[in-house]
């Protein structure tokens, strides 16, 4: 199980099937929210994730593929592109140095 402290999160990947639609929408929203904490947010097709991003956010339907692609990263799954509680959880952990795990 992967784990990370909020203060260590500097780079978040939003992964989507093609990295063209909803992930771009979400990335623009999250970039704004997380910028004040010095966190960069980038979107990518799930198959293009490389290395060990701090956190990978992905739709629940793609979470297994994201975990295969980045087994050492914390993978957080959401079901709603607008207002999923996991986005608040991520921001809260970064702000309060809480622990995120997947």
């Amino acid at each position: 199980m992967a784990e990370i402290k909020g203060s260590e999160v500097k780079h978040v990947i939003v992964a989507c099937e093609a990295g063209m639609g909803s992930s771009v929408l979400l990335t623009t929203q999250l970039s704004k929210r997380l910028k004040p904490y010095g966190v960069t947010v980038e979107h990518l097709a799930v198959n293009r994730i490389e290395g060990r991003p701090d956190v990978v956010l992905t739709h629940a339907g793609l979470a297994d593929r994201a975990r295969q692609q980045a087994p050492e990263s914390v993978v957080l799954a959401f079901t709603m592109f607008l207002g999923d509680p996991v986005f608040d959880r991520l921001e809260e952990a970064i702000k309060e140095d809480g622990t995120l795990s997947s």
Partner: protein
Amino acid sequence: MGEALLSRDGIRLGLTAGDRTEAIRQAGEILVDIGAVEAAYVDAMHEREAVLSSFVGEAFALPHGTDASRVHILRSALAFLQFPDGVDWEGEKVRACIAIAARSDEHTDVMARLATVLLDGEKAELLRSTDRPDDVLDLLEPSAERSPS
């Protein structure tokens, strides 16, 4: 400011579609008509939709092709389709689609504007119900050319 990705010829309001497949077929046809994609890209849009619904909330969906199908994009462009009566989208109701053909990240600005619009109830409803293409451009692509008035 780069060239507008969404232009008047890519905006279709007051449409009807019997189901999601038909809505995506219509979206793909517009992208083909405006010279943005080859027909094979439309197949990939159906394929992508089968893997994961492109519904994003607020009665909006963002249909697009797969990563591999980017080779069938002739030029990056967007289309806006409005279905005032709604289309069943795997149990969700969709009233507006933004069809995407993007070679890379050219459409980030429009997506950022869309994200802002979707968090504003009144503006989101305007996109779902307006009969004026200029309203769509004002909210999503303010740099695009307007109709002569």
